[in-house]
């Protein structure tokens, strides 16, 4: 029996490949360090959900290996799932059920299910016990999923677009809950989203995916520190070496060029304005990296 304390990475993905007609998740590699939140970023159809479904063994993979909490995600599937919670963008419970029913169902499923903890979260989130889920708002449904996810001492939360469609107030509440969850060093979160502002607030590390390929992975602060956007005239753009450019957005007024080594470019192109960037911009420029120039 694995000791759930003795592992370095909550998730280790090696050469994960899933092939569909017209789309391939192509040799995905990244880790989620124990005690951290990984923001998994990509536009719609990039492969985030496919990666998460492979992780959770919802779909078959063609190649690769996945370790979660130090264990193989297929051989030790049930041991992992006792310590794992999944949160999806839509509530996976029938509208006819209520929170009381869910307690009855899940306490039979998870060995460490804590009904008092669950009821505590429901009280905290202001969720009624006997109201049908069909009468819940979207925000209430997400909080319910989170309450269920946090009520069996899970070591790992895997969230697929969990905050999509929520208003800013509810999103903020959810993010606070995730940060609270992470106060225990043994807890980790993998959170996929295209709402990069949420991930900028909470993520420790980020992984960008596009068209089934990993574009970039690393600590969020390092990624933000090393990337920048040069804003200049079109004439000046021609002076910048292609090897330094991730991609460039060319408009009638000038050029905005994403660089991946801000410190070096600051010295090399000292006459040009080099601004800090955001995760959203990084995603945009990397998605257009194949084109090199775009508008």
């Amino acid at each position, binding site marked *: 029996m694995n000791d759930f304390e003795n592992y370095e990475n909550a998730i280790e993905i090696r050469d994960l490949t*899933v*092939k*569909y007609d017209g789309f391939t998740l192509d040799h995905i590699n990244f880790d989620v360090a124990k005690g951290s939140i990984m923001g998994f970023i990509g536009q719609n159809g990039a492969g985030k959900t496919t990666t998460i*479904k492979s992780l*959770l*063994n*919802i*779909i*078959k993979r*063609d190649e690769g290996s996945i370790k979660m909490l130090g264990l193989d995600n297929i051989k030790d599937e*049930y*041991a992992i*799932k*006792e310590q*794992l*919670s*999944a949160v*999806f963008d*839509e*509530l*996976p*419970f*029938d*509208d*006819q*059920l209520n929170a009381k*029913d869910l307690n*009855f*169902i*899940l*306490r*039979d*499923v*998870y*060995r460490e299910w804590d009904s008092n903890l669950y009821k505590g979260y429901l009280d905290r989130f202001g969720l009624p016990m006997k109201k049908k889920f069909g009468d819940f708002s979207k925000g209430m449904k997400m909080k319910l999923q989170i309450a269920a996810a946090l009520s069996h001492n899970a070591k790992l939360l895997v969230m697929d677009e969990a905050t999509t469609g929520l208003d800013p107030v509810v999103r903020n509440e959810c993010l606070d809950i995730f940060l609270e969850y992470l106060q225990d060093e043994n807890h980790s979160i993998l959170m996929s989203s295209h709402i990069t502002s949420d991930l900028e607030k909470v993520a420790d590390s980020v992984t960008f995916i596009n068209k089934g390929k990993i574009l970039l992975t690393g600590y969020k602060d390092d990624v933000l520190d090393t990337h920048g956007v040069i804003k200049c005239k079109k004439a000046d753009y021609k002076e910048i070496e292609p090897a330094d450019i991730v991609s460039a957005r060319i408009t009638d007024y000038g050029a905005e060029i994403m660089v991946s080594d801000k410190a070096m470019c600051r010295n090399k192109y000292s006459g040009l304005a080099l601004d800090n960037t955001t995760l959203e911009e990084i995603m945009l420029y990397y998605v257009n990296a194949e084109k090199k120039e775009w508008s």
Partner: protein
Amino acid sequence: MRGLIYKEFKLNRKFYSSFMGMAIMFGLLGFLVVLSSICGNLKNFAADNKDLFGFIVSVLTYMPFAMAVFSVFGVVHSVFSDFKTNWTYYSYTLPTKPMVTVGARYAAGTITLAVCSIGSMIYSYILAAVAGTELSETLIKNLVAITVIVFVVLAFCLPVAIGLKDIKKLGLVGMIAFILLTVVEGIDMIKMVDEKSKDGTLSTYTAEDEAAGELMEQKIFAVRDILADYWFIIIPVVLIISLLISVKLYQRREK
């Protein structure tokens, strides 16, 4: 498994209550008809039309059972609603073995069928007692045989539902089966009419027809007797085969 069985009953509450409601309604109607034949307005009718009245009472005896057993198919319906709500994907993230997840549906279906069957037997016994007769062995055999048939149909539908994952596809399978049956029976019927019209016996019920009818009846009764006498073997065997197929299909991961 208790929680998952509870989920099945909770999700199908409306399904159960509609059919159970109709079963209770027909049950009460049966009582009223029998009571009325003993000391009410139907007394003379029952005395003058024994055969017809006997037929009406037997239909009323079976109707509550028929309504009740339809509710068993709630567990098939819930397979599709689980796919619709993504509960099936969510269940793949739970630490429950496929045998437990799938077995909960079978348990719910079997419990419902057992309750319906036993309830119908009790109802028939009480109805017979009120009518001043004994519960016929034929009736008991018929109820047991129908229970086995319903169980076999359920055991067929569950793996198909779990494998198809889509109620429209199941409806399509049902329609294709119905069309095929209709076509086969239709061809038989056309052949028979063609032969009879050639030899001029189309408008008459011949001795041959009577013999064919009796043979068919004997076959049906023979099957009924086998089902009624060996239900304790047929049901477990069918259950195990169906459950194993369903578990295999549930475990089949999409790509």
